[in-house]
């Protein structure tokens, strides 16, 4: 089976490759085109006079501020999520009471809550708490919706840590916090990376919470900025696509540096 080439699969694979690459290629070449080239030239041709002026325009329009906002929201969400999910997962796995089982089931059920359906009460809560139009307003519900899957993944990973390791630390007189920090944390590091990547990417690219919970350009995150650029530059598509490309750079860098971890993180253990 391995020896014969699979022709139909090969053809399908090639067709899909073209479908994937054309839009990506289009983003790159268009972002390097000047306005006149955009109107005149074949949209998929290599630009006759490649220019970086679109990038310059985007960077001069507060792009760095939006980038920073996105970084704050993403890092904040990931840090809080990992911290609270790890302790919760520890409790769920090592707990001996009925309540620890209930807790796990609550998170398991939480996986089925569609984020979209909760935006109106969340909007209500955030406005009443006077957090509307702050980055914290985006972070809080983002953490809440990242927690269930994070706890489930970390708990599944924690279950594989042999009980003997806990026992031997117990003999040494270690408490639960010390076990968590010096035993569990190093062992579950791959799972923590998976969770961090998955949650981080979701928040970096997240659109709905920023849309309903922020308003001013001071608190704008990248996906919202792209949307705003689209309105602001309207006809200047090359500039909008330059912004698209710039907003993807950190993720692309991650993809190049740690592809394996990123890909594992992307499926968040669903493929296990």
């Amino acid at each position: 089976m391995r020896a014969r080439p699979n022709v139909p699969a090969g053809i399908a694979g090639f067709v899909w490759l073209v479908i994937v690459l054309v839009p990506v290629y289009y983003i790159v070449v268009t972002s390097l085109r000047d306005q006149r080239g955009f109107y005149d030239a074949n949209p998929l041709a290599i630009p006759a006079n490649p220019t970086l002026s679109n990038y310059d325009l985007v960077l001069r329009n507060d792009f760095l501020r939006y980038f920073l906002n996105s970084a704050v929201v993403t890092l904040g969400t990931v840090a809080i999520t990992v911290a609270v999910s790890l302790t919760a997962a520890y409790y769920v796995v090592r707990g001996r009471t009925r309540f620890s089982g209930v807790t796990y089931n609550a998170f398991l059920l939480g996986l089925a809550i569609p984020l979209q359906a909760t935006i109106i009460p969340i909007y209500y809560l955030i406005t009443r708490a006077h957090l509307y139009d702050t980055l914290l307003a985006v972070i809080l519900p983002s953490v809440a919706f990242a927690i269930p899957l994070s706890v489930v993944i970390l708990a599944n990973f924690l279950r594989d840590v042999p009980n003997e390791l806990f026992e031997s630390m117990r003999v040494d007189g270690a408490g639960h916090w010390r076990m968590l920090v010096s035993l569990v944390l190093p062992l579950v590091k791959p799972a923590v990376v998976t969770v961090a990547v998955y949650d981080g990417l979701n928040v970096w690219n997240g659109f709905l919470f920023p849309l309903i919970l922020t308003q001013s350009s001071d608190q704008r995150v990248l996906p919202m900025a792209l949307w705003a650029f689209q309105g602001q530059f309207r006809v200047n598509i090359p500039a909008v696509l330059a912004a698209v490309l710039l907003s993807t750079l950190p993720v692309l860098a991650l993809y190049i540096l740690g592809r394996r971890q990123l890909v594992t993180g992307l499926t968040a253990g669903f493929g296990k």
Partner: protein
Amino acid sequence: MDAPTIASEPVELGSKAVGRPGAGHPRTGPSPLMAVPALVFFGVFALLPLGGVVVLSLMRWDGIGDPSWTGFGNWVTTLSDPATYHAIWLSLQVMVVSWLFQTPVSLLLGVLLAGRGRYRAVLGVLYFLPLLLSAAAIAIAFKALLDPNFGMSRAFGVAALSQDWLGDPTLALYVVIFVIGWQFIPFHTLLYQAGVRQIPRQLYEAAEIDGAGRVRQFLSITLPQLRYTIITSSTLMLVGSLTYFDLVFVLTGGGPGDATRFLPLDMYLNGFSNNDMGRASTLAVLLVVAGLALSLGLARLAGFQRGSQLEGA
């Protein structure tokens, strides 16, 4: 916390306590306090809103002032408006057509990528690029690419490609489904790739000896072995299709007319554009009910199959 511990594991406790009297540190499990921060976040910003949306569906609220009771008024409005059924019908179409489009493609690509070899690794790197882009970015890129005047219609000089892709109501629905597929197929390809790699190679070797061809092997080994992956992937696809929002919002905004105004978009526009949060909440409740019913139904289906398989073994 001590009492239930002793009650649930008396034997273990007894033996260890005798064996190591000096071990000192609690035989008790960790304090529930460790789970409290996660539970508070989850409770306040996920569970509470889930209940809150039911309450708000019984209230009148413009999104600014204070909500006031209105009973089932919103429900009457929502359920008597043909726009609601239009949105539900669209969401159903998206669900079914997306599944029919994404499943075979992801399955085939997953099988293709599961083999080892350099060119497959390169293909993998390129296939997964869409996963890196935000829905807003994808929508913006496709909007430009599909523009009837400056988009790809001009690139190839093929008449069939120069359509008003997003301006024609029937076409727009399928274009949106295609773009959704473009965004999500890589994810499902990853699932299938991982699934195929877990199939024992011996099965194929045995089939080879029996003279089974490739198609036969695919139908009799690969597909049945992938049934849990198929269920996982399908659940995520079907439930997920109830929640497609950002991509459609940026790509078409629900248009042209209301041709792509799916249920979640209908909810958002009712709430945040028409300032009718009560009515939007009724639509949100419909979303929750449909999503829960779908995931529980599919989980049951999966659980049932798993159970019967265990009996067989």
